[in-house]
């Protein structure tokens, strides 16, 4: 049966329904490294992402903003309320 969820700022959780075999597989893949690359005073990891700006779509590379102060803001999703 479909269940209700309350709309909020976080996207509703979704998950794969696991069989036993997939359980084992998951445990193997959980060994992924969980190292954080972020350190204040250290370099911001560079990236290139597609973006929307003033009516046009373009690719933006962080390193192209060298020489300027940049504020990078992550958020859960468009049309979430806050």
């Amino acid at each position: 049966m479909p269940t209700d969820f309350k709309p909020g700022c976080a996207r509703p959780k979704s998950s794969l329904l696991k069989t036993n075999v997939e359980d084992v597989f998951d445990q193997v893949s959980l060994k992924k490294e969980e190292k954080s690359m972020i350190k204040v005073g250290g370099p911001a990891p560079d990236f290139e992402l597609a973006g929307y700006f003033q009516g046009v779509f373009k690719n933006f590379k962080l390193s192209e903003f060298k020489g300027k102060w940049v504020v990078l803001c992550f958020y859960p999703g468009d049309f979430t309320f806050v």
Partner: protein
Amino acid sequence: MSVSVDSIYVHKMWNDYELSKMVEGGVQFPMLSDSGGGVGSLYGVYDPDSGVEMRGRFIIDPDGNIQGYEVLTPPVGRNVSETIRQIQAFQLVRNSGGTEAAPSGWRTGKKTLKPNPELVGNVWREWSVKDDD
């Protein structure tokens, strides 16, 4: 710049249909699409369980170094004026070549400190909590 896992098309719709009604001329910075959360993972703000990125805010200086960050869970918004205050403080420090420091609560025009051996133990002479007001 802002980043979420939404597509650039949804960014456009959000800007055109809602945000442009809140901010004249629409959003004044690029809205980036990080589908899959790869960049968010690099910055430690992607939550694979919910498939979205937390409210992480990073201040990056002209050399490409992170000077500060703040991460909030989804239901509470950030304070833009605090971000601007921090950037102004970092700019002041940078322009002074590191000879000046911005004390707690510093705002543009307020007293800065010039760290040197004589200042050790004497900050109370130079600065008081009231300077915050």
